[in-house]
């Protein structure tokens, strides 16, 4: 009898516990991180009777969680990647949206500016036209500034988000450490029964932590878990949590970096790229992969426009009749941003200048010193672009030199040639008369000439830099080596191989001369703007069009040397100064075979280019006249065509009162579509559209990957939830089940009571 009672009571207890657990499940159906619980029942030990074992009831062994370690780890891993991609995607969308406007972006501002330049070209001395050009230049500059400010503010909000992510991580780590303690003590107090809801809380915190940064969980068996970050940094060990901190980057103090805060207060920055996932990883990836390149590329457009425009403006003449000086630029000249590493031990400070806008890449550079050599590395592809034991060091259109102090081994510097260019773009002149629309050179064929030759207007150009290869020519040169034995030498650091098969008449199988052989070698080496020409005094020279820097020949092998090619650095190209034309140069033609021109300045060599082939005449010698050829001296070029008569003269003088001269304005206007950027392959808008394409591609790629990752995450969560999640229908069924169990046990109790009553009534 009592057996029945006790069995019924145990059954009622078990059913009650089942109802309570089901109720708990229903109550927490929407609690994040909650894991479905269920009662684990077992039969109580049976009583041995003569007729065998008689059951004694039921016992609730434990309340079990439907927890699957594998699935939960999966969810955490997918979650951390998903957070990273979503964060990076939502950040880059800001840049993507910035680039979307076709009415307020860079393109219309560039177009308005160049339209105004065109108007000045049509009306060179109209003050309203010039004023409009200045105003549109200002609005172009402010468009760049605005875009740059937007990028900067995105950068500083990234810094803030990194800081808040780090404080979240610290707070989660602390809470987890606290929970570790609670769980250990709860487990001890309950004699090994799992504190399910505490475990859920801790798992939920781990999941949240994984949203910020990837952590791996090691179960220590006693209820404690140990958390480590991807780079091995321990965050939580038992009841102890370790803090992260934020510091300003040593290479670029404008950027916030994540660091480990040691117990002794020592802050150690994590190496870059050591945090690659989670929200934090997304922010860091966005900053280095998307934001910085966008800033640099935008700066490249700004630097290109400002620098190239300034250079052309300085070759012209303003309305006051003067050439703008190098300190009187149209736009303020772009200056690269240079950052000394704060951990440098030496006291050397450097400065960088842009020497060639067409070579700029938009990448950052790092300069390191190992005690002997300086190494310049391009960040975009981690390629060493220049090594030297002395400064200045130059590459990609940027030249870097020391301004002060000396470096020590291990010192490094960050050079960002274009990072600041958009933010610092400004119109540097305010007087419309300062716009150099005219050319400083004027030519004239006087009325007294009797021939029909005409002289072109003349222009000042920045090209025409030359250097002697064979300084003094050793007479006619013939290759004597076999075809296998090529002449090799470096031109401005680029190795050039001259094929022995292409030789001077009579030697070898190919046609042509040493000059054409070297030219072919230069072309094959990609040095297409270098040309070989003969010097009137004999010998050959190499000229680099488009640069005033001297051409350097080095590393000539013995075959090259035996052919008269000598190592050396030439002279810089002639730079035009108005003084070159004081007094005016008057050329006089003397008929004869061939006809000659005399009267060039006694100290200037003259280069005559006919059908693309330049010939240089030594200073002071008569120059052979060729109909239609381009004549260049002292940085001035012009052409004379037609048939001059004996004693006809041509004058080249300073341009005075040239109020309606628009020659330089035309060249300025032409810069809009001229391929001046990236080695002469594209124009300003081309570079900007590369930026747009780059941002667009990155955004679209992130959109695809983050969507895919979200889908994967959702599927993993669904799998995990299919095990751990609460299904209300199931719980409703359980309710019914436990209710019926309870009712049945009650009925058993009632029957037992009836049995008992029967017994009692027997005694009456």
């Amino acid at each position, binding site marked *: 009898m009592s057996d029945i009672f006790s069995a019924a009571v145990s059954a009622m207890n078990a059913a009650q516990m089942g109802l309570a657990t089901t109720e708990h499940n229903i109550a927490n159906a929407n609690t994040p991180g909650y894991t*479905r619980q269920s009662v684990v029942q077992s039969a109580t030990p049976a009583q041995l009777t003569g007729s065998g074992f008689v059951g004694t009831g039921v016992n609730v062994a434990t309340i079990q969680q439907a927890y699957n370690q594998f699935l939960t780890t999966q969810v955490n891993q997918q979650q951390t990647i998903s957070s990273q991609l979503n964060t990076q995607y939502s950040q880059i969308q800001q840049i*993507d*949206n910035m*680039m*979307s406007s076709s009415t307020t972006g860079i*393109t219309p501002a560039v*177009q308005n500016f*160049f339209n105004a330049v*065109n108007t000045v*070209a*049509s*009306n*060179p*001395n109209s003050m309203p036209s010039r004023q409009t050009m200045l105003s549109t230049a200002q609005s172009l500059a402010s468009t760049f500034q605005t875009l740059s400010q937007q990028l900067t503010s995105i950068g500083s909000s990234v810094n803030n988000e990194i800081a808040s992510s780090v404080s979240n991580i610290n707070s989660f780590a602390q809470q987890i450490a606290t929970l570790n303690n609670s769980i250990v003590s709860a487990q001890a107090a309950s004699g090994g029964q799992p504190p399910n809801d505490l475990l859920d809380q801790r798992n939920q915190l781990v999941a949240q932590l994984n949203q910020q940064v990837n952590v791996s969980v090691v179960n220590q068996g006693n209820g404690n878990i140990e958390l480590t970050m991807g780079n091995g940094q321990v965050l939580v060990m038992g009841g102890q949590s370790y803090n992260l901190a934020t510091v300003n980057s040593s290479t670029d103090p404008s950027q916030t970096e994540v660091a480990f805060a040691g117990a002794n207060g020592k802050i150690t920055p994590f190496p870059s790229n050591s945090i690659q996932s989670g929200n934090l990883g997304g922010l860091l990836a966005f900053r280095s992969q998307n934001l910085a390149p966008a800033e640099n590329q935008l700066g490249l457009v700004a630097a290109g426009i400002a620098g190239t425009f300034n250079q052309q403006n300085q070759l012209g003449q303003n309305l006051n009749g003067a050439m703008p000086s190098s300190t009187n630029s149209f736009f303020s000249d772009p200056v690269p941003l240079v950052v000394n590493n704060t951990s440098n031990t030496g006291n050397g400070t450097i400065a960088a200048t842009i020497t060639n806008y067409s070579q700029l890449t938009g990448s950052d550079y790092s300069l390191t010193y190992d005690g002997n050599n300086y190494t310049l590395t391009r960040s975009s592809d981690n390629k060493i672009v220049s090594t030297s034991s002395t400064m200045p060091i130059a590459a990609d259109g940027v030249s870097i030199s020391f301004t002060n102090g000396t470096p020590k081994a291990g010192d490094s510097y960050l050079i960002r040639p274009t990072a600041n260019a958009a933010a610092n773009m400004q119109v540097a002149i305010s007087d419309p008369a300062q716009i150099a629309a005219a050319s400083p050179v004027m*030519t*004239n064929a006087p*009325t*007294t*000439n*009797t021939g029909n030759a005409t002289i072109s*207007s003349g222009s000042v150009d920045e090209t025409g830099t030359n250097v002697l290869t064979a300084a003094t020519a050793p007479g006619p040169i013939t290759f004597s080596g076999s075809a296998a034995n090529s002449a090799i030498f470096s031109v401005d650091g680029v190795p050039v191989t001259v094929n022995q098969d292409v030789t001077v008449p009579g030697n070898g199988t190919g046609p042509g001369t040493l000059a054409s052989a070297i030219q072919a070698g230069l072309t094959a080496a990609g040095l297409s703007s270098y040309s070989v020409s003969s010097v009137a005094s004999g010998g050959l020279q190499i000229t680099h069009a488009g640069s005033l820097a001297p051409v350097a020949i080095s590393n000539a092998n013995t075959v090259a040397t035996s052919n008269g090619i000598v190592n050396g650095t030439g002279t810089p190209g002639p730079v035009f100064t108005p003084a070159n034309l004081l*007094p005016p140069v008057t050329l006089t033609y003397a*008929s004869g075979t061939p006809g000659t021109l005399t009267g060039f300045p006694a100290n200037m060599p003259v280069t005559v280019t006919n059908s693309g082939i330049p010939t240089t005449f030594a200073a002071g010698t008569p120059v052979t006249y060729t109909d239609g050829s381009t004549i260049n001296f002292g940085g001035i070029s012009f052409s004379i065509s037609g048939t001059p*008569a004996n*004693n006809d003269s041509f004058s080249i003088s300073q341009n005075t*009162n*040239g*109020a*309606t*001269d*628009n020659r330089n304005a*035309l060249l300025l*206007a*032409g810069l*809009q*579509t001229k391929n001046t950027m990236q080695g002469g392959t594209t124009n300003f*808008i081309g570079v*900007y*559209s590369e930026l*747009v*394409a780059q*941002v*667009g591609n990155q*955004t*679209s790629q992130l959109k695809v990957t983050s969507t895919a990752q979200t889908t994967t995450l*959702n599927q993993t*969560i*669904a799998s995990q939830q*299919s*095990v*751990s*999640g*609460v*299904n*209300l*229908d*199931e719980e*409703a*069924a359980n309710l*019914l089940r436990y209710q019926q169990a309870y009712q049945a046990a009650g009925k058993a109790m009632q029957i037992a009571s009836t049995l008992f009553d029967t017994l009692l009534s027997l005694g009456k």
Partner: protein
Amino acid sequence: MRISTGTLYSTNITQLDTLQSNLLTTQQQASTGLKIQTPADDPAAAARVLQVTQTQSTNTQYIANINSANSSISLADGTLQSVDNLLTSIQSTAVGAGNSSLTNADRQTLASTLQSSLTQLISYANTTDSNGNYIFGGFKGSTQPFVHTPTGIQYVGDNGQNMIQVSQNQQVATSDSGAAIFMNIKNGNGSYVAGTATGGSSTLTNSAAAIVPFAYSSGGNATFTVDGTAVTVNQDVTVGGTGSGPGTLEAAIQAGLTAAGLNSYLVSAAGGGGLQITNSASKTAVAITNVTDPGGNIVAGTGAPGNSGTGNISSVSTANPAPTAAQLGNSYQLTFSVAGGVTTYSISGADSNGVALPAGFLPTPSTGLPYTSGQAISFNGVQFNIAGAPANGDQFTVAPSTNESVFTTISNLINTLKTKIDPNNPASQAAFSAGLTHAQDGLNNALSSVLTAQTSLGARGQQLDVLTTNANNLDIQYQTTIASLQNVDMNAALSNLAQEKLMLTAAQQSFVQIEGLSMFTYLR
């Protein structure tokens, strides 16, 4: 698979979010007409749109440039048309002036008519555009290009020619230098010009040497006597930048002559270099004496007298064969001699450096050639004739053409008309005829120079018309390209919109259905 109730909801929420977001994108595309909302939607097309947009707006700018060029060109063309008309009327006046029935007074009247035409011509040459810039001044557009000087109208503009960008690779000239149109007009036939030792008598001031600039200080003036009248040349008026005054030695001497009251004496360039003084009112040789010239420019001497016969040289034409390149710079002189009623002439010459031609470079024989009035004389590629009766010692020249401005031509014509013809002096009639012939040649040359300029303007105008058509076509092409890159296909967008709306509705309704399925509904 077991589904947790939370998953049921969250999956539905995700699905509804996705559908709504798609619907919004499609709706935006339909309402803006653009399929690229941000570069991420189609990075390559977004970049391409920027470049094509720039190309399109550059093209639009070229159309504006073409319009600007057209207005410059039509102003120049209109002005040159007026010049054309004016020169034609001057030409007919010159032809009419040859009528032998006219009296000296009639010619005087014609001269004053021409004087006002000359003034008109100068004002045409100094035409300004709407900005007040001189259209024939080259790059010196704010400086009046044609100015009066003691030696006539001078051009102080430059040779500059403004260009304007009218397409990616083409520039078109929008201005023409006045020097080319009005000043650099070759006289004679373009290669050679005939000359007569007519107007008064002439003498060399500065022998064959080149004109030397004044190099001395303003302290020492040059003084000399011309036909007994003292002349002072102010040293301050100099050549090429030294000294403070404008002008040339020629202008300085002319100013000195005028100051001394010698109004009929004119300074001009002599054939072999140097300067000469001519007395337009007399045929006797001009004598220069008492020279004090610190610069050593002016030499004393007595010149040759002018022709006294009635001989008249025609215009020079090119013979067959034409002059060789070596012969082109030569100048020739024909000197007549009358002995015993027989007129003969001899030919001498000099090359471009002033060196006398040796015998082999002249016709053989070159002396004692018999003269027949009106018979063609042809040698070394030149051909001309001399009519009338030259007197003993009369000289005629055939020299390489030089530039003679249209203003000089007209001024000379006016002087020719003003000079009285003495019926008793056959030489004065000959001089008149020679002047008239020269002026008519000069006017022809000037007209052809203006017509050449007009032809060039017309050609540029036509080029601009073609370019405008091209640019307009290109504009449509660029618009099409941009549209195809960034515009949405409206049919597709609307169809997508309907489909996505349907999907969203279905998802919403089905969710409500599923959501209603709960066992708790049945627990009573």
